[in-house]
């Protein structure tokens, strides 16, 4: 299909593209269109695949507010479509293929869900726009624990039983423990919980010996001296003053780094013009104060990637994840 008619309106382009997208097996089909001519028509919808008040919601609302500030005249409504650990929201988003007026604040569920469960989508069905930052995890233990480093925990697991709490089979922290086992030959007995908060309670109550949680989830407990961080499963140390003294796992001889990404995706099958528009807007967002504030308040490492670079990151991450999950 040739479409170099610059007079095509965005709406017409979107509807025609919707048809092309339906007609091809691969939702990634990108077609002609000019970046300069694309402008979202009417209100844009940010589909949050989790409930209000959670991490995904926070990220969706922050990005929406930041994009509105970066692009004059842009109006984004946020809509929560909770259910099935994100599957309901992503499936709904899939039904918007070809419509550039929808966005979704994405995270690792985008990769983990299709690997683990039969859902109608995987990451190739969507258009990656931007990765805002990385949310690594810290290995944390109750203050009374004898372990000082991650190597201590690994050694203890070789000598005897170590009970680790994880938040679900496809969760990031479970992946981190699996990667640690693969890298060191350690063995962790997992007790499944449903959320980071439940893990916190179990750690504070000495029900489990170790857990791996995002800095944002544990920083207050660390400050209060209720928990101790052993190491960060990150490539480099955090720069935040309250986290900078935590060594990386690699420094302690455990070569594991794995992050949950926070980013933004658009539906598959949108025009090149629309894709470029959202990437340009995202670049402006990342440089804004709003983005800095979001990153700092959630203790992310600000490693932004856009468009093709983000796609390449997803490919790489997906391979690593499927190996870790044994799929």
């Amino acid at each position: 299909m040739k479409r170099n008619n610059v007079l095509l309106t965005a709406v017409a382009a979107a509807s025609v593209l919707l048809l092309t997208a339906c007609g091809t097996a691969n939702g990634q089909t990108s077609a002609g269109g000019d970046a300069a001519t694309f402008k979202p028509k009417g209100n844009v919808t940010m589909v949050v695949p989790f409930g209000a008040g959670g991490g995904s919601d926070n990220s969706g609302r922050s990005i929406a507010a930041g994009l509105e500030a970066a692009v004059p005249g842009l109006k984004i409504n946020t809509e929560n479509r909770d259910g099935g650990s994100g599957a309901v929201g992503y499936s709904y988003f899939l039904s918007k293929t070809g419509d550039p007026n929808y966005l979704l604040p994405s995270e690792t569920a985008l990769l983990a869900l299709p690997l683990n469960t039969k859902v109608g989508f995987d990451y190739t069905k969507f258009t990656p726009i931007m990765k805002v930052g990385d949310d690594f995890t810290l290995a944390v233990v109750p203050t009374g624990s004898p372990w000082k480093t991650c190597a201590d925990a690994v050694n203890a697991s070789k000598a005897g039983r170590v009970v680790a709490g994880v938040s679900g089979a496809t969760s990031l922290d479970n992946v981190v423990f699996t990667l640690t086992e693969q890298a060191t030959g350690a063995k962790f007995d997992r007790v499944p919980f449903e959320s980071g908060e439940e893990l916190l309670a179990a750690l504070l109550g000495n029900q489990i010996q170790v857990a791996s949680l995002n800095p944002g989830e544990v920083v207050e407990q660390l400050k209060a001296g209720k928990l101790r961080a052993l190491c960060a499963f990150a490539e480099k140390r955090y720069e935040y003053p309250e986290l900078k003294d935590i060594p990386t796992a690699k420094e302690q001889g455990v070569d594991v780094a794995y992050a949950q990404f926070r980013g933004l995706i658009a539906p598959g099958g949108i025009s090149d013009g629309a894709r470029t528009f959202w990437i340009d807007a995202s670049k402006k967002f990342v440089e804004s104060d709003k983005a800095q504030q979001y990153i700092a308040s959630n203790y992310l490492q600000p490693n932004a990637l856009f468009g093709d670079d983000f796609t390449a990151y997803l490919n790489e991450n997906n391979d690593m994840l499927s190996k870790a999950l044994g799929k």
Partner: protein
Amino acid sequence: MIDNLILGFQTALTPQNLLWCFVGVLAGTVIGLLPGLGSTTGVAVLLPLTLDFEPVTALIMLAGIYYGAQYGGTITSVLLSTPGEASSVVTTLDGYQMARRGRAGAALSIAAIGSFVAAIFSLILLMVLAPPFANFALKFGPVENLSIMILGLATIVSFSGESRIRGLAMASAGLLLATVGMDAATGTARFTFDNVNLLSGVPFVEVMIGLFAVGEVMYQIRVGAAAPIRTRFRELLITRSELRRSIGPIGRGSVLGFLLGCLPGSGSTLASFIAYGVEKRVSRNRSQLGQGAIEGVASPESANNAAANANFVPTLTLGIPGGGTTAVLLGAFTIYGLQPGPLLFQSQPKLVWGLLVSFFIGNVMLLVLNLPMAPIFAQMLRIPYAYLYPIILFTSFVGAYSIDNNMFSVWIVFVAGVAGYFMKLYDLPMAPLVLGLVIGPLFEKALTQTSALGDGDLLIVLSHPIALVVLALAVLLAAGPSLVRLLPRNTPDREREPAGV
């Protein structure tokens, strides 16, 4: 302590905070009234509107919605047998029967009074003893939770009505339904038929709306007998003897609700079920429970309110949510740039104490709002059913859609409604099914975790004293009367013991 209280009053009594506290409790009452729209959804939906507020004002309003909904949820449970909130399901058992006998005003009044007493009782404990209770709650790991779920299951016999076997069958059906969805431990999808909407399980609120509201309407259309209730206004007021009968149940409900509410993860719904189960065992009028006894309204309504407040114990002292709505509230803290955690009391005294004092003020507002309104609400039953039923159906389906903006919820309500109709027709009790569906996922989680902790050996329960005590209570609750009958002399005092926990 006194300084903190003064600080709290200074914060909560500003005209702006008073106004938003009132808006919150009023909105909460309405949200609680509407089936489907529960406090969790209500807080989540209104959260974005508060982003420009002072954090303390925003939290005062959002918390107002939360406990306001506990009051509102009762009204439709009693009048229409349509629980507005999950924690008011139990109230339908006796509350609706009371309404059919023209005692709706009394049921609503005692619910408001019980809720108020429980709220004040639990608030005082929350202010004075939150840290020790929080530390006690941390002792409740998977093993202890498992024993609590067993205690919850043991109350099933109390909801079974005439036939125990039917109750057990319905509870089993509820537990079976609860196995649908993604397994937390392995991530395996069970009985979902590749439908993503079922990955998070059979949605509880939708089933509840269908069974109780839609099922009841269909059944009433079939029997066609119901005439609008005709009572004079004065007869709607609560009597002195009804008040006297409610003192014990309110006390027991408050204590039980507070204790259960302190534990992270177990919400006010479970508290209301267990409180009713205990009442069914220990109340002097236990034989009347289920047929419209005021104890059956007073106890669960006190318990769910006490639990709602107690949910703030782990939330404020540890930064760990006590239930679904407090989880959303914790999310709100982060959005306002506050870090909830063990340091909150030290780092944000103005916010914490202002919020706590606002609970007092909000509950007084709710009592003042609800007591005079109870007989007026009860007048609603004078509306001929030909007008009332379409309204119930309309709010049920719209309410269902509003939960997740998803047509799937509407279909669940429809299916559950048809099921509810046949259950009524064949006299199968609904409350055990709901209880099974609520406890199922929690029970399974605790069981998996206990098994994982014990490396496959469930006998690690034996090394957890708290769990053993709770299990003993469960046995007492389930088999109490049979055990007592074996004793030489049947002393009522012996049976009262479980109430003392």
